[in-house]
């Protein structure tokens, strides 16, 4: 939304400082995203009078002008190519050294043998319009040598406003001026229309009816739900043409291109009063009639942009006696549009239901300045004033006359809304007592009508504030008009939260910290991707086919991240992620059908060297292998899933973690990937994060007695696992066996084919007494007997 400083000044009757104004608007009602100076680059251009025009000695099309530019050195010679240059008139003059829009810097130079001291400029050269037919004749009393910007009112600022969705009143200059007036103690007054006369508009009143006739045009409001209030005026005998300069410059100041006097007049009213208007050619209106009704299924209209649109009964159409001419509130048709030939005009001033317009705009993917405003809600009560001013303006710039009072169809008239405000509630919510008189003054300053009613204030809401419906809305008005910065930010007592921390957040923090310490970087991947399992939850409206499903696991996403790292030549990659995974719900979730089941998961991937190389070690650092994977999987399971047991995966590839109920809660294995040849093997694990309360660690007395140690090398036949040996060894050796650890494995010569030798380190201890060596030897022997009996495992012969 762009507003012009100069236009605001015209409404306020006072000058505005651009920076201050931007600051004020930002702090009071709508953020100013940018303040753009307009035409300031014409700073060097002067007003000059041509004293004499002579033919150029060497060129037929050029003339040699003697120009008074106010300089002390007297008149100067300027070569001019424009046919319209005349002695005695004033023109913009760019002296040598001036820089014109587009960066052209003027130099003293010879044109066809004659020196030209600067240039007389056209509107286009000054960036003031497209007119290049001749130099710009100035209608000014300013003396030669005056700054062009001082003599001609084109210097301006555009404020780019970020208007909140609840404030449609700020979508026009009057609304913005109203806010400024409240702050400045000024009043908003619509400027007189040059050449205008309010008396050309016959007086009219709303009728609580759905149809009527105005100047031979029949108007039928068949869809009062879509158009609660609908006004039509007929203006006859006007002439479509170019807009006067003042009107064109108002529009260019807000970034609008002037088109013709009628269209420009409606645009002017839109930007001044926020009332979209539609003008159409009476001659092209069959009937002549204006029918406001729901569109019929598949009804078509070619909109102004030349595209054929298919409407639905959810949309309101403005039709003539036969067919639609306008998609109500959005865009008119090329056919009914005002043209150079138009003499009689039908002018529509309507209120369209915001939701209806929003749906239409969305369905047709077609928006306009009008739809933008109708969607947010225009001033239902201010429509007659807007129509009067529009008629006055059109008659002023295009001639013609209104022979009959406009028709104002309003089947169910509405009164202004009244909202009650308790002054003590203002203090309660804002924390600062605001005097009743100040509340009244603040609300009145932007158009609320305040009257006491018992202990309360009865506040009548102006039509341009559809957002104000509750007491709290008025309290916000008080707060912002008083200024948010006027409220202190002092500490006052508060009670601590009755809500406990979510336990899962503590658990996740611990998991993250431990994985980071183990050398993993935390990744955060996108939960959307291709389907990664039969239970994948589908997004009904994905952005792309590759992002059509929610993840059921974190690992596939992490593998893609490893591949991304490989593509950047990163060979050593250790990543983990904790995040939500989704599975198709079974329909009994808290949200009913359609809701997925959510579960927090922890996954990690690892590839590359086991540790960074160091110059003290000649050999290459080995790459991580499945034993590194197992270590980190055990760490992850211990963190994420208290009490889960590890086992070799059923398929013999990698490991599984099994929960208390026998369900598999985690897996770890080598992973398939799209790896470059130089990459190391890739491994990964994933565990469901479960909220088991970790057991409280109790102190165990530190033993004071010495341990007795033994190393035992055993020969394991094929198929016998280390876990099976350990389990039996522990059982047979009894409680004095404190530690039992594998420290070596050997395959090869000196032991029977198909067997392997595994060496254990055992440590025995009795916390109460010092063990005898012989006692330990007996325990080891007992264990060896059990191993031999049950597993055919024997001590290795040395």
């Amino acid at each position, binding site marked *: 939304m762009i507003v012009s400083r100069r236009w605001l000044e015209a409404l306020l009757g006072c000058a505005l400082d651009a920076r201050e104004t931007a600051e004020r608007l*930002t*702090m009071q009602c709508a953020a100013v995203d*940018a303040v753009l100076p307009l035409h300031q680059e014409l700073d060097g251009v002067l007003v000059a009078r041509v004293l004499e025009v002579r033919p150029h000695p060497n060129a037929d099309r050029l003339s040699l002008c003697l120009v008074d530019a106010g300089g002390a050195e007297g008149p100067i010679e300027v070569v001019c190519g424009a046919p319209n240059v005349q002695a005695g008139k004033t023109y913009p003059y760019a002296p040598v050294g001036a820089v014109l829009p587009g960066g052209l810097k003027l130099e003293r130079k010879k044109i066809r043998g004659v020196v030209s001291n600067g240039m007389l400029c056209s509107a286009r050269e000054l960036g003031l319009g497209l007119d290049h037919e001749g130099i710009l004749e100035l209608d000014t009393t300013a003396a030669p040598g005056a700054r062009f910007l001082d003599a001609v009112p084109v210097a301006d600022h555009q404020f780019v406003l970020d208007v*909140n969705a*609840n*404030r449609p009143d700020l979508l026009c200059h009057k609304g913005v001026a109203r806010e400024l007036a409240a702050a400045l103690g000024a009043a908003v007054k619509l400027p007189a229309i040059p050449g205008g006369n309010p008396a050309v508009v016959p007086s009219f009143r709303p009728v609580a009816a759905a149809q009527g006739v105005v100047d031979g045009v029949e108007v039928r409001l068949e869809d009062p739900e879509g158009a609660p209030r609908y006004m039509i005026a007929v203006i006859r005998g006007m002439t479509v043409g170019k807009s006067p300069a003042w009107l064109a410059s108002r529009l260019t100041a807000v970034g609008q291109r002037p088109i013709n006097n009628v269209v420009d007049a409606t645009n002017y009213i839109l930007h001044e009063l926020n009332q979209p208007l539609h003008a159409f050619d009476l001659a092209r209106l069959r009937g002549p009639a204006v029918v406001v009704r729901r569109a019929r299924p598949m009804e078509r209209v070619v909109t102004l942009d030349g595209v054929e649109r298919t409407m639905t009964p959810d949309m309101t159409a403005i039709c003539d006696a036969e067919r639609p001419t306008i998609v109500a509130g959005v865009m008119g048709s090329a056919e009914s549009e005002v043209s150079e030939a138009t003499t009689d005009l039908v002018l529509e001033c309507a209120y369209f239901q915001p939701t209806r317009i929003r*749906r239409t705009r969305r369905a047709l993917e077609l928006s306009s300045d009008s739809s933008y405003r109708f969607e947010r809600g225009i001033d239902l009560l201010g429509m007659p004033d807007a129509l009067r001013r529009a008629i006055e303006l059109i008659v002023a710039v295009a001639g013609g006359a209104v022979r009959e009072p406009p028709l104002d169809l309003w089947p169910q008239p509405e009164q202004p809304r009244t909202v009650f405000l308790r002054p003590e509630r203002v203090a309660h*919510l*804002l*924390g*600062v007592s605001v005097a009743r008189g100040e509340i009244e003054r603040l609300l009145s300053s932007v158009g609320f009508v305040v009257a006491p009613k018992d202990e309360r204030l009865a506040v009548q809401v102006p039509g341009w504030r559809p957002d104000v419906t*509750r007491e*709290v809305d008025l309290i916000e008005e008080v707060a912002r008009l008083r200024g*948010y*910065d006027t*409220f202190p*930010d*002092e*500490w006052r007592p*508060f009670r*601590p*939260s*009755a*809500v*406990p*921390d979510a336990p899962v*957040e503590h658990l996740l*923090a611990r998991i993250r910290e431990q*994985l*980071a310490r183990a*050398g*993993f*970087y*935390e990744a955060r991947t996108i*939960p*959307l991707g291709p389907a990664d399992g039969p239970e994948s*939850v*589908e*997004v*009904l*409206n*994905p952005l792309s086919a590759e992002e059509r499903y*929610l993840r059921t696991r974190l690992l596939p996403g*992490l593998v893609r991240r490893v591949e*991304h*790292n490989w593509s950047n030549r*990163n060979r050593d990659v*250790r*990543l*983990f992620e904790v*995040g939500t995974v*989704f599975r198709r719900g079974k329909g009994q979730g808290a*949200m*009913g059908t*359609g*809701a*997925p089941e*959510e579960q927090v998961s922890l996954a990690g991937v690892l590839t590359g060297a086991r*540790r960074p190389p*160091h110059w003290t070690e000649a050999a290459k650092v080995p790459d991580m292998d499945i034993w590194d994977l197992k270590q980190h999987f055990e760490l992850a399971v211990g963190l994420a899933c208290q009490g889960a047991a590890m086992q070799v995966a059923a398929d013999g590839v990698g490991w599984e973690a099994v929960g208390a109920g026998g369900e598999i809660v985690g897996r770890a294995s080598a992973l398939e990937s799209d790896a470059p040849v130089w990459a190391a093997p890739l491994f990964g694990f994933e565990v469901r994060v479960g909220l088991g309360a970790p057991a409280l660690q109790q102190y165990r007395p530190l033993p004071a007695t010495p341990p007795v140690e033994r190393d035992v090398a055993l020969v394991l036949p094929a198929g016998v696992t280390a876990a099976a040996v350990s389990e039996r060894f522990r059982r047979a050796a009894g409680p004095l066996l404190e530690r039992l650890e594998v420290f070596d494995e050997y395959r090869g010569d000196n032991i029977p084919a198909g067997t392997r030798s595994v060496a254990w380190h055992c440590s025995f201890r009795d916390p109460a007494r010092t063990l005898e060596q012989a006692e330990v030897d007996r325990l080891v022997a007992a264990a060896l007997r059990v191993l031999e009996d049950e597993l055919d495992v024997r001590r290795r012969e040395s």
Partner: protein
Amino acid sequence: MRDLLASLDGLRERLREIPQADERRLQELKTEILGRKAGVLTDILKALPGLAPEARKAAGGAANALKREFETAIDARERELAHAARRIPGVDLTMPGRPQWRGGLHLVTQVVDEICEIFRELGFTRVVGPEAETERYNFFALNFPRDHPALDAQDSFYLGDDVLLRTHTSPVQIRTLETYRPPVRVVIPGQVYRRDPFDPSHSPVFEQLEGLAVDEGLSFVDFKATLSAFARKFFSADTQVRFRPSFFPFTEPSAEMDVQCQICMGSGCPTCKQTGWMEILGSGMVHPAVLENCGVDSERYTGFAWGMGPHRIAMSRHGIPDIRLFFESDVRFLEQFAGLVR
């Protein structure tokens, strides 16, 4: 007796030799003076019992004191020499130390934790909620009108007629108010979804952090105090803060909080569009309709709420130009911010 004291004085002179002595010389000195068999000082001490009681007392005190001085000096010199002996000749101590793999938390995790920690000091606990939500929790209970533009299906990811991936963490406000009676003071971090394709400043998924306080007597002043305190703790103690009007369906009055641009410190730069301010969070007093929708008496209880984007805050604080870097997981990026782990 006089001779004895004189020889002690002479011996004392030799203390000076000790700090310069090398290993061999130190052992010689030690033997010569303190040696058990023939040490000079040992001999003197041995001779003491033969003196008259008066002289024995005077000379004994001086001799024992001198012995302690020698012991201390020799001991110090021995330690000095032992330390010097650890210097390995020919070793270049500028060579790199033995490294270990480092890991680290994602920058967004760190920013979220940092913010939650600040609010914990201000009395807020930390809660979370589901990422798939119903329209009721995501919109209607939050006072979004049925035809609000935010409900456009094209802006949210839908999983069913009524189920969508939450577009903000605000549904957790509703879940909290439905579950707990005031006083409620919570911060709510979590992942949210908007149907925006990836570009340098947009991602279909990003982190959001909301806060909610509801109790008797909470006012606009408490709201400003809490969020200003946060800004001063998160940025710096002298950071300027401003509140300006805004609009959200679930707050009234609504406010945007800006802090002094951390790049130009308020003088204006391209990052802050020359305003000198950075938009940090959207906020306001909880709309009474939201309280009513949760069964909370809106006459008795008031409160405030806010929401902010840790990704955006991290981008502006650390100068990260593209939000996609957060998701690509290039280890070189992750490593840059691993040092922040506390």
